[in-house]
């Protein structure tokens, strides 16, 4: 037995050698225990790569679980709130799962690889919950987090670059579709999915293909202005696109200690993911009750006046504090000051006019700003390219 425990020290992904070589700023963060870059060379420029050319983000630390067996679909349908039977083979769906009280535990994407063959991809770890869910089902769950690694290749030139890599006819792939290719003799799977709200793909390979994949992508993509992007840039893009982030916009319910800090799908604006026509899914009874009796909170998308992001702000209605901001950013493409907030019912309906209490600092001088804000319907940033099939070349 080795005397040192360094094999369990800080982890790096199979792309690390390439990532480190490009991380000019040496600005690192810790995602799920992995050394990951916050930014490579400039947060803003990296973000713009996502919106104008192509940005590449190392997805390897995501948690992946393979679900197989005769009951795989029934199992998933009990797990998630949407009807997974509607998901066809080689299609991907966004899903959330809840505890018995209807509180959201996590969100993720579900890839259907075969008739009875799925992969769950989640930000949080779910080994324990997924194992408990197997009771009563003939299903096998395998943690694939280390055996499948991936890159998000997102942006207007992403389809072109990947086609050059060998993904023939990729431009025909519909949003949320999956296609299978090979790369240097090993499987390469592409899904038209992503966290940026734009044209983009996620590319999945076994770990031994990682470095070669990165090298080829960057070589082929050079003329199409491919850039590596870090967590900070991705965060900006996702806020602009209106996507929720666990541990930022909601707490995974099983980790919550304090009473009242969990949220139901209705309270996160995810009612569209709850399908009551399904016979049984976890949280159903509680959610039916909530639908009848009303929720405690509402998810509100706020268009905030001015250009100071409403980070960590309290939301006021008159004198009263009615909510808090969970995510906020000045969105460079939409040129809008957006914030996500949790607002106490009955406030926060679309059109409601509220005030964000913003504190911002310039050269160590703090200013308190009461910025008017309005609850709007959907994200301001809407990319046509995101839905276009065939996907455009740039």
């Amino acid at each position: 037995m080795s005397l040192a425990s360094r094999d369990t020290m800080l982890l790096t992904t199979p792309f690390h050698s390439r990532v480190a070589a490009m991380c000019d700023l040496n600005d690192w963060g810790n995602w799920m225990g992995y050394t990951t870059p916050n930014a490579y060379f400039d947060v803003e420029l990296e973000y713009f790569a996502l919106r104008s050319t192509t940005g590449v983000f190392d997805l390897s630390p995501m948690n992946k679980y393979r679900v197989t067996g005769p009951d795989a679909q029934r199992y998933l349908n009990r797990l998630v709130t949407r009807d997974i039977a509607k998901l066809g083979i080689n299609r991907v769906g966004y899903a959330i799962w809840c505890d018995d009280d209807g509180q959201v535990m996590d969100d993720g994407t579900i890839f259907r690889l075969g008739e009875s063959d799925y992969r769950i991809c989640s930000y949080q770890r779910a080994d324990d919950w997924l194992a408990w869910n197997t009771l009563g089902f003939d299903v096998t769950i395998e943690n694939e987090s280390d055996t499948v690694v991936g890159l998000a290749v997102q942006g207007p030139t992403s389809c072109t670059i990947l086609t050059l890599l060998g993904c023939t006819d990729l431009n025909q792939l519909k949003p949320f579709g999956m296609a299978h290719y090979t790369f240097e003799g090993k499987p390469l799977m592409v899904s038209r999915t992503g966290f940026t709200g734009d044209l983009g793909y996620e590319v999945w390979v076994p770990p031994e293909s990682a470095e070669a994949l990165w090298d080829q992508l960057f070589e082929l993509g050079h003329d199409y202005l491919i850039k590596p992007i870090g967590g900070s840039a991705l965060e900006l893009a996702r806020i602009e696109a209106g996507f929720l982030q666990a541990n930022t916009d909601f707490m995974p319910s099983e980790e919550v200690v304090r009473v009242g800090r969990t949220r139901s799908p209705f309270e996160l604006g995810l009612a569209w993911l709850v399908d009551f026509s399904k016979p049984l899914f976890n949280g159903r009874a509680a959610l039916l009750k909530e639908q009848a009796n009303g929720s405690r909170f509402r998810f509100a998308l706020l268009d905030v006046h001015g250009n100071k992001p409403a980070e960590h702000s309290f939301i006021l209605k008159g004198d009263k504090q009615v909510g808090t901001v969970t995510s906020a950013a000045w969105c460079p493409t939409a040129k809008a000051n957006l914030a996500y907030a949790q607002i106490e019912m009955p406030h926060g309906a679309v059109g409601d006019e509220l005030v964000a209490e913003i504190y911002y600092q310039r050269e160590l001088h703090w200013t308190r700003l009461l910025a008017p804000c309005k609850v709007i319907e959907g994200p301001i940033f809407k990319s046509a390219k995101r839905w276009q099939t065939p996907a455009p070349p740039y």
Partner: protein
Amino acid sequence: MATSPPTLELLETVVNQYDAIVIGAGHNGLTNGAYLAKAGLKVAVLERNPYIGGATVSRELHKGWYYSNCSYVSSLLRPEITRDLELPRHGLQVVPFGGGATFMRNGDHFGNYSDHDRHYRELARHSKRDANAYDRYSADTSLQTKLIRPYLLRTPPDPTSLKPRDLRDLLEFARSFMNLGEEKLLDTIKFWTASVGDYLNEYFETDVIKAHMAGSGIIGTALGVYSPGTAYVLLHHYMGDVDGNVGAWGFARGGMGAIASSLSKSFQSFGGEIICDANVDEIMVKNGSVTGVALKDGTEYRAPVVVSNLDPKRTFLDIINPSDLPKDVLKKARNFKIRGSSGKLNIALDGLPVFHGLDPKNKLMAGDLHFSDSLERQERAYDDWKAGTWSKDPYLDMMIPSLTDPTMAPPGKHMMSVFVQYAPPKVEGREWTDEDKDGFEKSVIDQISNYSPNFRDLILHCETRTPREIEAEVGLTEGNIFMGELTFDQLLFNRPFPGYAQYRGPIKGMYMCSSGTHPGGGVMAAPGANSAREILSDLKRPNTVPGEYADD
């Protein structure tokens, strides 16, 4: 016959006259004295030993090495008290340690890391499922910790009393539980009545992981890992904090004696007096009120308030005339359960022992180290205690404070503290003999040696303490380190006995402030403080004792 001039007698009486006398200079007695003195009372703390501290002492028993030879780690010491009595100004510095591990028979180990991600990976090395379940475990256990922390620096309400204050306190207590909602409240009741073994089985599948955590449920108890009520004991090891980092443990720099020393300096800074070599024989009572104490050598100290920092059995059965006590108190004191179950070895080492499977430079070495890698082994160790003998395969809570605190041993050398479960208060019904003690010592040394090839050769000196030594030197009856077992019948409004759980004794002017009162044992100083609050209230003096910080 020459008679002493009346003026001298008068002087003597005046010289030995105090507003309050505290019996026992353990940390609770010193805390109690400090708050009373801070309120302006003239206070004397009487100590039987030539040195103060009770179970919070540092003793140089081998030249160059300092042993925290009873209590050995700090976490529960109330930060409100530390700050309020200015203990840092008086020399106290608690340094948190990280690390800790359970060594396994197969040469592997399970390490404890304070960093969440790092700890995840260590758990995952054994089981990915357990690593994930740990978050659920943390959340559920944190909930319990948060529930109880606000009540440490408070007097427990008396549910049998109709006094407005008690009713109000009871209601507030109940409300904090009701706010949890039905299901979480029931889960709380389940937690309070479950065994640590069953509790851990609801989260984890790996033996060594469960065993590592279960140890905190049996330390200092007369219970085993499958005995109901041991999950609650976990809280005593989770609810402390170092600088707001709840659950962290630390070393008092200079050994636990630094706690007693800083408390005594604080006490003296308020005008308090400490008198050592003062062995109290009896609390003097006249017409139903205390008048002071008499020492074994005849010296008398007078005061209208006498606070006992001795354990409840000793207090009511040794130093008070039975005719001064109501019958029910005598009966309750006799039935008070205070069975010791622990022993200790304090060892001076010539260097750092190497344990199988671990690089000696590994940070894990600085924390609590154990060898019982399964719940079964821990349960078997308990079987031995029930049979009246020391555990043949003992559970050890072993630490090397000199890896964090340079004052405990010369550079490059080390001081090792080994806390042992289980050791019975009597061996098969009879008193411990020196032979027994040697046998006990051997079982511990053997246990450690099984996992370290060079440990035995590094031993320069070993101080072994069975319940016999603990009782004889520290005054802890039957060697029970908590001054009374931590079972529900002796906790909260039942500690030490129902009807006497608010620090007041059955005689006017007589009080209790030891760990035998709420919130119980562990180096918390809370009993001493809570008791002072009650005394000052009875004396209609302004309160100097702080409430707890809002905890969020």
